[in-house]
């Protein structure tokens, strides 16, 4: 076999006896045998299908690709979210009704929260409870807990009990039921001992602590207390001014020297801004119109039995024996009710909650106030520290027309000027007015009026304050209240009466 470069084709060789010539002849014969003839080509042309010029719709392929991509992205995003939920620090959002207690536990941390509030609990590296409204009582069992509120940070050691109240218009308030807690406000730390409040009462004095260790907190204080907002003013410097104003006679408005901040404040921070304007009495009015136009009006009736009542609760079966309360961690001995006029309340136990609910059922459904009062006296709240029990007791006493006793109970209660407490505050003011304590009644009415809510309680408070000021001889202030009432409620239920008293 020769190399193709220097050999001829087998089929080019002439016929002969050589092997290559024979193979060439065989290839020629095979090629001729398999060569298609003209008929075969004609058949092929006839059988060839007409070409389909319609191209496959490529847009559908693109759409399918986009859909697949979208589905993949959605599945991937869902997977990422699922993984993030699995891996991220868990948060619990709890909604606690008034008087309800929620026991929360995670990773060895146990907590009892009593509402009303909506709170978010972070149970990871540092347990934190964030509340944005309402009031909450917190009892951390095993480890320290932190409560974050607007403009406030409260460090609660294990075994302590604290109530943080955001309902007051004047700002957040912290009550240390038991145990000593640390409060950080406006960059300064304060230690709140057992039974005391923050901001402290006028008789108390809590000095801000610049040393976080001394305050028992882990976070260092802000190095810039000078930038303190109104919270710092309430905490320190504003209080002496408020006391001065309180001591001053309401008939003689304070002079400019008394309104000015003190020259040398007793406690740091040294800057003491002027207290909020709602704490001040209104400036002296121009000479009042003839006094005979203003007659002391009768006090509006106090519909307290309905006003102070929380929403009705279904009847609960009373257990025969109180279930044991689960306090696995020994707590320091709880102090009894302090001797101060304001009672320090604690969350109700489940047993106490059931008894209080039964008392409300007796009051509102069966109209048996005496039975409710007996039940409260005999069973519920032996410590006298549960706020809901006190409300039920007030309602029962009012139903029995024991107004003085009801007022005595109300005097022990810390009442804010927001939410349900507005009913209590207006009722307490009216009871004060009934007993002739118009100065205290004016304070209660003023708190309600200054809360900037326009409702029936605001109407009653305006009417009550006008009547009390008239009795106190402050005719111009009373006239101002009536005019304010007519401006706010020109068609209110006391509008005609107010116009008659104001005169032409």
């Amino acid at each position, binding site marked *: *076999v020769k*190399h*193709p*470069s220097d050999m001829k*084709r*087998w*089929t*080019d*060789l*002439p*016929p002969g006896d050589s*092997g290559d010539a*024979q*193979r*060439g*002849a*065989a*290839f*020629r*014969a*095979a*090629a*001729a*045998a*398999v*060569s*298609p*003839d003209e008929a*075969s*080509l004609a*058949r*092929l*042309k006839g*059988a*060839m*299908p007409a*070409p*389909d010029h319609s*191209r496959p719709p490529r847009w559908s392929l693109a759409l399918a690709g986009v859909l697949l991509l979208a589905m993949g992205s959605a599945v991937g995003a869902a997977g990422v979210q699922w993984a993030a939920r699995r891996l991220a620090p868990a948060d619990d959002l709890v909604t606690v009704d008034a008087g309800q207690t929620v026991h929360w536990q995670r990773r060895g941390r146990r907590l009892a929260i009593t509402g009303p509030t909506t709170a978010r609990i972070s149970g990871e590296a540092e347990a934190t409870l964030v509340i944005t409204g309402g009031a909450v009582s917190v009892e951390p069992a095993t480890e320290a807990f932190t409560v974050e509120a607007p403009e406030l940070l409260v460090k609660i050691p294990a075994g302590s009990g604290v109530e943080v109240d955001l309902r007051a218009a004047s700002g957040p308030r912290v009550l240390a039921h038991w145990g000593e807690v640390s409060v950080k406000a406006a960059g300064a730390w304060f230690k709140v001992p057992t039974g005391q409040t923050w901001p402290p009462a006028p008789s108390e004095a809590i000095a801000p602590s610049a040393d976080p260790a001394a305050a028992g907190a882990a976070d260092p204080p802000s190095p810039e207390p000078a930038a303190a907002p109104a919270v710092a003013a309430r905490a320190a410097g504003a209080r002496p001014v408020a006391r001065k104003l309180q001591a001053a006679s309401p008939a003689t408005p304070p002079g400019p020297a008394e309104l000015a901040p003190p020259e040398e404040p007793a406690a740091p921070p040294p800057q003491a801004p002027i207290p909020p304007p709602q704490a001040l009495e209104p400036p002296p009015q121009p000479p009042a119109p003839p006094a005979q136009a203003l007659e002391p009006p009768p006090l509006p009736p106090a519909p307290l039995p309905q006003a102070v009542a929380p929403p009705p609760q279904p009847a609960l079966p009373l257990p025969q024996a109180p279930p044991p309360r689960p306090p696995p961690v020994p707590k320091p001995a709880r102090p009894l009710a302090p001797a101060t006029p304001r009672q320090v309340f604690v969350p109700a136990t489940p047993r106490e909650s059931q008894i209080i609910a039964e008392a409300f059922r007796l009051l509102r459904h069966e109209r048996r106030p005496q039975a409710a009062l007996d039940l409260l006296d005999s069973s519920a709240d032996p410590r006298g520290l549960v706020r809901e029990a006190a409300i039920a007791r007030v309602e029962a006493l009012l139903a029995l027309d024991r107004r003085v006793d009801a007022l005595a109970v109300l005097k022990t209660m810390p009442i804010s000027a927001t939410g349900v407490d507005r009913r209590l505050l207006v009722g307490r003011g009216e009871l004060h007015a009934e007993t002739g304590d118009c100065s205290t009644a004016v304070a209660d009415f003023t708190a309600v009026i200054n809360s900037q809510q326009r409702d029936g309680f605001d109407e009653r408070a305006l009417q009550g304050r006008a009547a009390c000021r008239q009795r106190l001889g402050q005719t111009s202030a009373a006239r101002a209240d009536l005019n304010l009432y007519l401006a706010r409620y020109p068609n209110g239920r006391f509008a005609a009466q107010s116009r008659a008293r104001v005169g032409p």
Partner: protein
Amino acid sequence: MPRTSIRSAPKEEAVDFDALYRAHAPVVLRWAARLGGPLVDAEDVTQEVFLVAHRRLSRFVGAGKVSTWLFRTTDLVVRNTRRKLRWRRWLGIGPEPVSPRPTPIEALERNELAAQVYGVLDQLPAQQRRVLILFEMEGLSTEEIAVLLGARVGTVRVWLHRARAAFVREQQRRGLTFSCTSGAEGQPK
């Protein structure tokens, strides 16, 4: 013996399917018949080749010579057809039913000499078989074969040299002597 003249193939810039079919159908049919041998229906293969060509014509435009592309398509279709035939024989199914019309295959089966040639060619490796058929039957030069197969000329010559040697060995192994008794072999050109 008709030969393929790829120089006369239409250029890629004038690709139109009807013109493509008219220009290349006879060549493709001959390629199919000669590459496929006696057991392959060349007309079916040709139809399949042009269906593929129509489907992929848009991809081909501007990619090379039409004849080269058609030859490779024909070669692929023939190989697939022969592979299916081998599987059918191995499974005992037998060849596909052939249409009743007279085909070149049926004519070839009656030619014992051509059957002997393809019997030997079928024992060669595919590349050598392809090169030998194109060189001896189609009359293409090694340069033209290199263009069709996308190989270098030297490589094609090596394949052709080995194909010839393998053909001679297989012929001798079978003890075949191609004595030209029929007049179908034609004359050398």
